[in-house]
């Protein structure tokens, strides 16, 4: 379970203090598929970065599986990221010098698996996203949709409990976006908790639960995608 209570995040420069998150509270249960929407600059991505331990929070409490994250060392945070969390980014973030096999291999290397175990996981996860025949291809040889599938395979290879997706279809055309969402739904069906930030309300509709973020906080009242759409416009 992911639980945030009164979490705040403040970015400071010499002259400016920006509150990206204020009193942000949220509980995401095991197996949920949650979409996070909200206007630009509302704090969606900041929330996702903090949830993924890519940024430290300024205040409040964040517990992942009942463990207070703020007390963890860098090594422990890295271990949690590696074992429990998978990331999917809008721009795929594949390493251009590595082939598909090696890209999916990256998180597994830091996990300390044997070569045989890593190979099995890489092949299995690439099979799941339909790219097992492209092991030796370089990222530049794949379409955008295929690259995002590789990124999903990379996120899944370590069998994480949480999948955090930041605008996963933002760089894809509608057909590819649809197929990636189908894949995410399939992954969620198999038990993985997914939190997806998106500004596309039609995609957010595919999630089982929607939350709306405004001014760094979860908006009051039940999420209403149509209101959110109006706010986004």
């Amino acid at each position: 379970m992911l639980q945030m209570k009164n979490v705040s995040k403040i970015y400071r420069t010499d002259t400016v203090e920006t509150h990206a998150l204020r009193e942000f509270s949220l509980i995401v249960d095991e197996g949920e598929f949650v979409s996070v929407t909200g206007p630009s600059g509302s704090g969606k991505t900041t929330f996702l970065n903090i949830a993924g331990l890519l940024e430290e929070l300024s205040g409040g409490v964040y517990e992942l599986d009942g463990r207070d994250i703020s007390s963890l060392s860098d090594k422990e945070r890295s271990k949690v990221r590696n074992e429990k969390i998978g990331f999917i980014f809008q721009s795929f973030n594949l390493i251009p010098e590595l082939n598909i096999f090696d890209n999916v291999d990256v998180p597994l290397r830091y996990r300390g698996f044997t070569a045989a175990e890593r190979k099995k996981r890489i092949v299995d996860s690439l099979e799941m996203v339909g790219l097992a025949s492209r092991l030796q291809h370089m990222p530049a040889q794949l379409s955008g949709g295929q690259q995002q599938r590789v990124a999903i395979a990379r996120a899944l290879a370590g069998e994480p409990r949480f999948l955090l997706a930041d605008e996963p279809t933002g760089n894809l055309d509608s057909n590819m976006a649809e197929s990636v969402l189908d894949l995410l739904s399939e992954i969620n069906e198999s038990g993985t908790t997914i939190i997806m930030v998106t500004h596309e309300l039609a995609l957010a509709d595919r999630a089982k639960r929607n939350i709306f973020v405004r001014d760094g906080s979860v908006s009051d009242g039940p999420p209403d995608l149509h209101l959110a759409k109006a706010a986004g416009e």
Partner: protein
Amino acid sequence: MFRYYLRLGALSIRANPALSALMVAAIAIGIGAFMSMFTIRYIMSGNPIADKSDQLYYVRVDNWDPSEPYDEPNEPPEQLTYLDATALYQAGKASRQVVSFMSMRVIEPQGEEAKPSQIETRATTADFFAMFDVPFAYGSGWDKKSDDTEEFVAVLGQAMNEQLFGGEDSVGEMITMNGESYRVVGVLDYWSPVPLFYDLNNNPYNEPGKVFLPFSVAVAGEHGSAGNTSCWKPVGDGGTAAFLASECIWMQMWVELHSQSERQEYLQFLDAYVEQQKLVGRFPRELNNRLDNVEEWMEYNEVVDEDVGVLLGLAILFLVVCLLNTIGLILAKVLRRAKDTSLRRALGANKSAMFSQYFVEASMIGAAGGLLGIVMTWLGLRGIENLFSEYEFVGKLVQMDWVMMLAAVALAIVSALAAALYPTWRACNVTPATQLRIQ
């Protein structure tokens, strides 16, 4: 993971060939400049007889002018008179003792077409070879009986034997010097101590003598010294006999002593000898005798030229400048890869894993810089050799050995790691989200 990091390092170098080449070149140039000077200093200050250097003592007694010391503040002369050298030698108080001096002879090669040539010889006593661990290719040194009977025997240096006998076993053959025939009793294997510790009064980077012959034969034959000779009062008339009886210093003496107590006993013996000589009107100064082991004697003689120290300092500064450049280049490279670093951090790499990855890559750059640095060092040393080609001894100072080559690579790797420290630290402390957010 090490092999994985090696592979990532190779990929990174291949992905940024120009930047990587610049880093390798910066390290190699710095290493080349530093190692060139360091090699010269290393050879100059090397201990040529490390196993025994604390058992071999150079003998000095103060027979000098009562009105002023031989050297400030109160150093005794650096050589001995014939009178003292022979008296101390004949007393035989040490387990081994050697007196010697450098001379010049004209050697007459066999064969009608070969021309005579002047060569450097060393007149010495039988213990010389055993005392200084001199290696023999053929035969051996002469014995004490040959010293006592003024036997015309000789030991040839390796180069001399090559020149006269084509490197063959020449033991038993005869050689002729200044019209006198000597029987060869031994031929040295390659032996070229640097510095030439047993005679630092002349150029410490000279080659050993080409021919070694008995001290007694050289004195009786009036071979004369070809090395430094100093006198504090006139020799007077009487030719060689007067010179041998004079207060002129021109001989070197070494003794082998195996413990501090033996050293102490020998110093007491020297004191007693000088006190005895004072009774006959010699040694007008206060007791001032010295026994220096090999390292102490080299240090006293400042075998490492001060200029070399200055040049080494400049070379270190140059290396530092090259490393600062390398830091800049690594910083540029690492910052260009900040997104890659952030991505790996997001996928589970902790800071120490990222440090390891970048350090392995820096080590690869450093190793390449070290290998190229060896080539640069070799070129630098050849340049120095050409610049001072008129000095034969320079050739001995510009030789790289395996130790120096390994040192060059090790220094290059350490330098590269030092240069990578700050850029890697910066890269690892970037919040991953900052870079991953950039689309």
